[in-house]
Structure formats: C-alpha cells, structure tokens
C-alpha cells in the first residue's frame, strides 16, 4: 500500500522536474536500512534526480526474489544462502554495496546462552542445542563459523531452526535451547531481562558482510542512474557513519547528527529510539563491500552443502558502480 502511495506522489511531482528517474527500492523496516532512510529523508536521491519509492517487505527472501525478477530496481537485505542459490538458479542480481556487517569492536550479533547455563565459552557447546532462525540464514552461517573458530563444526552441535527471532528469544528464555545467535537490539533485551548471557560477539570472531544493496540486472544496465544512485547512497552512508559509528578510544561517541539520524530511523522503523541506539550496525563509511568475504561465504555454504551449485563471487558482486560514484 505504502509503495503505491509513494509512486503516485512521485508521478505528481514529476511534472515540474520531468527528467527525474523513478527507482523502486525494496527493503525492510530495519535499522540496517538506515542509509536508505537518510538518503530519502534528506533528499540525497533528489539531488541526483532520482525519485526513490520505498517498497516495504515483511521478509528478506522476497526482496531478493523481487530484485532479481525486476519488480523492484534496488533491494536492500541480508545475504543468505538462498540468495546464492537464486543466482545459481539463473535469477541474476548484483550485490553493489555494503549495508551492514560484523566488525570487531562493534556490537551487532552475538552468541548467547541462557542465564543458568554453565557454558562460558564456545568450546563448551559441544553436543548442545543452538537455536537459529532458518537453515541457510546469516545466523546459520555465524553459528557455523564461530564453532569452526573454536575447533568444532556444526556436526558437533544440534541446530534447532526456530523460524523467527521472536522464537529464538522465547526458546532461550524458556531454556529449550542452550544457546542462540541473536542480533541487536534483541541481545540487549535478552541481557537486560536477565535470561541471556553473551558468550562471544560475532564481530570479534570474524569480519562478515551480513547484508547488502542489490541492483536488478535491468537497473544495472541503466548505468548513469545506477551510478547516481550509488552517489546518493555513499553520501548517506557517510552521513550515517559520521553520526553514529564514530569511536574514541574504542568507545562509541555520538557524532554531530546523532539525534537526527536516530529520529529518521525511528520514523521509518516505528521503533523506540532508545532501542535503536542499542542496535546500530556497522557499515563502511563509503559503502564498500567486503568483497573477498563474499567468496568466503560462498565457499563455506558450498562446504556445508547449503548451496546447490558453487558460484563465483564475480557472478554476483559488482562494485564498479560504487567505485565510479566515489571517483567523481
């Protein structure tokens, strides 16, 4: 519904600036879409003569499907095994920019155990039950990689797919699983409500490109607009980075536009600003992807037989647009 409204508004305004290009962006109402919110809200897209239409989705997977199928031009969501499978299955799309990653020193996702658990480090999880959302999800990947970092593998534990983050939190609080992967702000909630305890931060274990900006193949062909879009996105990323991700001596400090960015996110996600402050994901200041991590992911998923046909990262990553945008 909301998407349609935006489109109509765009068409109406199109009369006085006829050269404006309309771009549909498929995204979730999540904090990690902050640069897009900022770019829309602060008119960065308009500066590039882009009429951005937000298309809201309820889950990550359909965004990827919609982007590949061209029903939206740009998608913004997590990078999962299903994405790679989709590309392998002939549904092409391009990952063009960062939209959130795990980075040392920044809290985003973590491995938690329940409060009565005797487990204190990942090594002690052997034979235990670890809750994830779905197979092939980023949570699945993180759990697997953490275990491998500690000399184990997924076969040493029992993975329990619980279908939703809500389900993860519930299962942890009722101690039906021994450990879960969670993201912020849910980690804070679990900790503050006293049923969860963090064992390790994912960012401390690895650098991990969790989500990205995708271009549909059709949109990518329209090179000028694509580059313009990237310009606006890079500008918004910088704005976001400077506002909320600046650190001094390893401690996060609010940047210049801190409150403004928080308010923008709150407006788009309908969330409590205090909660948002706890869960601001790390993003590259210029929106650069961790290019080599994509291949790492593909290899890992392939090893775990979660990808049907192994693909090459080149088939899915395209950083040219961003590079060109940053070079101008």
């Amino acid at each position, binding site marked *: 519904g909301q998407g349609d409204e935006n489109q109509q508004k765009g068409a109406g305004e199109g009369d006085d600036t006829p050269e404006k290009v309309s771009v549909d962006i498929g995204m979730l109402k999540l904090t990690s879409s902050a640069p897009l919110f900022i770019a829309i809200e602060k008119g960065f897209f308009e500066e590039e003569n882009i009429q951005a239409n937000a298309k809201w*989705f*309820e*889950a990550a*997977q*359909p965004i990827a*499907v919609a982007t590949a199928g061209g029903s939206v031009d740009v998608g913004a969501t997590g990078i999962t095994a299903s994405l790679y499978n989709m590309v392998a299955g002939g549904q092409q799309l391009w990952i063009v920019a960062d939209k959130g990653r795990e980075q040392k020193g920044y809290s985003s996702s973590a491995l938690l155990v329940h409060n009565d658990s005797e487990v204190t480090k990942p090594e002690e999880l052997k034979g235990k039950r670890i809750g994830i959302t779905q197979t092939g999800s980023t949570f699945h990947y993180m759990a697997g990689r953490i275990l491998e970092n500690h000399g184990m593998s997924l076969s040493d534990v029992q993975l329990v797919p*619980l*279908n*939703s983050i*809500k*389900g993860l939190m*519930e*299962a942890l*609080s*009722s101690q*039906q699983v021994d450990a879960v992967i969670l993201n912020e702000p849910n980690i804070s909630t679990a900790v503050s409500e006293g049923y969860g305890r963090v064992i390790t931060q994912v960012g401390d274990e690895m650098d991990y490109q969790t989500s990205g900006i995708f271009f549909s193949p059709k949109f990518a062909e329209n090179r000028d607009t694509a580059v313009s879009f990237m310009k606006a996105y890079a500008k918004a990323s910088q704005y976001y980075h400077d506002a909320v991700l600046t650190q001094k001596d390893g401690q996060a400090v609010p940047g210049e536009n801190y409150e403004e960015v928080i308010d923008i996110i709150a407006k788009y996600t309908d969330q409590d600003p205090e909660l948002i402050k706890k869960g601001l994901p790390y993003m590259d200041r210029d929106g650069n992807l961790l290019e080599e991590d994509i291949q790492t992911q593909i290899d890992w998923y392939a090893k775990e037989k979660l990808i049907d046909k192994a693909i090459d990262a080149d088939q899915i990553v395209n950083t040219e647009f961003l590079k060109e945008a940053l070079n101008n």
Partner: protein
Amino acid sequence: MAAVKQVIKNRVAFLDQKVPPYIPVLGITGLLLIWELICRLNIVPPLFLPAPTAIVADGWQMISSGELFRHLMASLTRILGGYAIGTVLGITVGLILGFSKWADAIFTPIVYSIYPIPKIALLPLIILWFGIGEMPKVAIIALGVFFPVLINTFSGVKNVDPILIKAAVTFGSNHLNVIRKVILPGALPTIFAGLKLAAGTALLLLVSAEMIAAQYGIGAMVLHYGNLMITTKLMAGVLLLSLLGLLFNRGLQWLERRLIPWK
C-alpha cells in the same frame, strides 16, 4: 408325568441396556473436577498441566486485553478466505470432471496423483511463489480444501442414481435440466460430506501454516506461548481452536439442514 414349563426369556436384553441421561453431563464435569483437583493438589506442576480455572482466567484476560481477538481475526480471515476459494474451485472443477467424460479421463489421474501430497509440504514452494504475506497461508488452506471438495463433488455427480436420470430424460428433460434438476441436487449430500471433511483439514492447515510462518493468528499464538512455556495461555489458544472447529462444523450442519431438507 407333569408337563415342564420353560419360559422364553429375552436373550438380547443386553442390547438395549439403558444408561441414565445425566451420565454424559456427569462424565465431562467429573473430568473437569478431577483435572482441577489434580492441579490444586499440585500432583502435576501447573507448567505441565494448568488448572481449568487458570486457563479460563487467563483466557478471559486475553479476551479483555484484545490479544485473543487480534489473533482470532487474523486466523478467521485466512481460514474463511482459503475455505471459500478452495470450495468454489473444488465444486466447479468437480462438476466439470463429473459432467465431461473427457475432462474426467484427462484430469482425474492428475488430481489423484497430487491428492496424496500432504498440502503443508507445499507451503515453502507457495511462499516462494507468493511471498511471505497472507497469500501463501490462504493458498495452502485453499489447496487443502480444494481436493476433498473436488473429489466429493466428482463422486457425488458420478453416484447420482442413474435411474433418476433415466426417469428425468423419459419425462422430457434436456441435458441442461438433467444437470440442474437431477444431478446437482442429487450430488449435494455428497458435496456436503466433502465440505465437512475439508473443514477439519482447513483448520489443521491453518494452524500449521501459522506456526511455520506467521506472526499473528491462533497457531502462531499457541506456538509463541509454547516457546515461552506459558501453558495456561497455550491451552486457552487450544480451547479457542476447538471452539472454532466446533462452530465451523455446526455452521455447516445448519447449512446442510437448510439446503437438504429432503434427507
């Protein structure tokens, strides 16, 4: 020698043994009382088996807070939508297969090879097709309803007593009238049997689909409280579902009596 007299006794008296009419009521109340007692005496911890009063109390609280209503509405929309779509399609296709021997020959084998798939297994595929919103849940219910209704409609049409068709034709009915005045009413009771069968399947699929992929709905609610180990609210949800099932069934019975008064 005196004649011996041997009276004939009823040897099947055990067949019409009578039970006082209040016994069934006693059965249910007795069960509830024992259940309550077990809980009150803490023989079973309330986490595993909450007392009926506790369930009712929590249920009432969920009604007052509007929580139950929100879930109920989500579920009702899905099940009614899916049931309506499945029924309409099922009856339509069933009639077509029933009337046309060609359609029957071509499509019935296809129908029967899809029929044994437990429909919930198609949910992931349907999510791929329709995305994650309401559509796949409605679609899965519609699919689950479609098949039993189709098959009953089909066999209802096929099993209309041919002597009735012969009579109608002899008395001058053309094909259209045979269908309208003989086959359709003749198939109605069997179609209704299909509708009743489908109601149970629809409810089961609703709950499954909501557990696998939904935020709202009674199925999601039950799973939610199961994950949280809040057994009273879980049971309140189960109670609601059983009421829903009962209501659904009664509604169909009522409709059946109105539409098939001659039975």
